[in-house]
């Protein structure tokens, strides 16, 4: 699983940057072609739900998806054999 922000829905309110316990969402810098500054992902492989949802078989955390007022945040399945990054938090 990996995090994805739907740019067609996001309105750039930056609420996700506030609620994520891992601070994965960062305020974006460039406006997209609709003039909206979409947040960017900072090392999304740290997301608990991305890493452990398969193992636990249920939705973990999921605060960002629930909080996003524009339903722009969701998880997508990876391609088969897609290389994984591993982030270690100290």
């Amino acid at each position, binding site marked *: 699983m990996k995090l994805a922000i739907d740019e067609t829905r996001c*309105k750039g309110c930056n*609420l996700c940057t506030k609620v994520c316990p891992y601070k994965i969402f960062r305020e974006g810098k460039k406006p997209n072609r609709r003039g909206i500054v979409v947040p960017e992902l900072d090392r999304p492989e740290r997301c608990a739900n991305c890493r452990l949802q398969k193992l636990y078989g249920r*939705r973990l955390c999921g605060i960002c998806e629930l909080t996003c007022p524009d339903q722009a945040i969701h998880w997508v399945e990876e391609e088969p054999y897609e290389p994984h990054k591993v982030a270690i938090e100290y």
Partner: protein
Amino acid sequence: MTFEDWFRKDRLPHIFCAGCGNGTIINCTLAAVDQMDWKKEETVFVSGIGCSSRAPGYIMTDSLHTTHGRALAFATGVKMANRKLNVVVFTGDGDLAAIGGNHFIHACRRNIDMTVVCMNNQIYGMTGGQGSPTTPRGYLSTTTPYGSAEPAFDLCDLAIAAGANYVARWTSYHVKELEKAVLAGLQTPGLSFIEAMTQCPTNFGRRNKFRQVADQVEFLKKHSLLKVKRDRLLLENKEVPADMFVVGELVRRSRPAMGVSP
């Protein structure tokens, strides 16, 4: 199935302003509805007029978008006509407290089996930011340019006094708690009332020194007082801060309910 499947994806993105909390509350409500294993054909969402009341238009079920303040009256009709339907009502504070106040009292008194989710943004957001019955004292709006002089309406107290079976209040910051509260409300027979305090960056925050969306969410987070904490303060004869509002499950009881499907 997740709550995403309940949305009408062709209608998204919705028309709410950037940072409006109504989308969050729709997410939480649908996540709770999703856990109930209800069929889409047997679920009806009813709403009145206002920003919040546009919510059923984005949901893939039968829905009623009714006249101003009369959402509960229409929902009563739906429930009485067919008890098998599961009725969820979305309303705003202007819809429920101001023009539909009497319907609200009597729906609580009758204790009809439905769930009422009130998105309280403390202002009339859609019509341009007029002061509503729930605007707190001292806050600015277009009709109260020197600060609201009246005490605000406490909708949860009203629902408790009128006899609702389940009453809870959360904010748009407390998403998981709100989801659990809505779920408990859906499971409770009788009228369950969930008040969700939400931010209105366009019309409330802009006039009240919340320049960013996150500022008002932070304000809601800081000024919410848990019910257990309030009770502890009362027990110790300490003063409850006047500018805070109580959040949590305020009442759960089993008065005889009307319209429960056999």
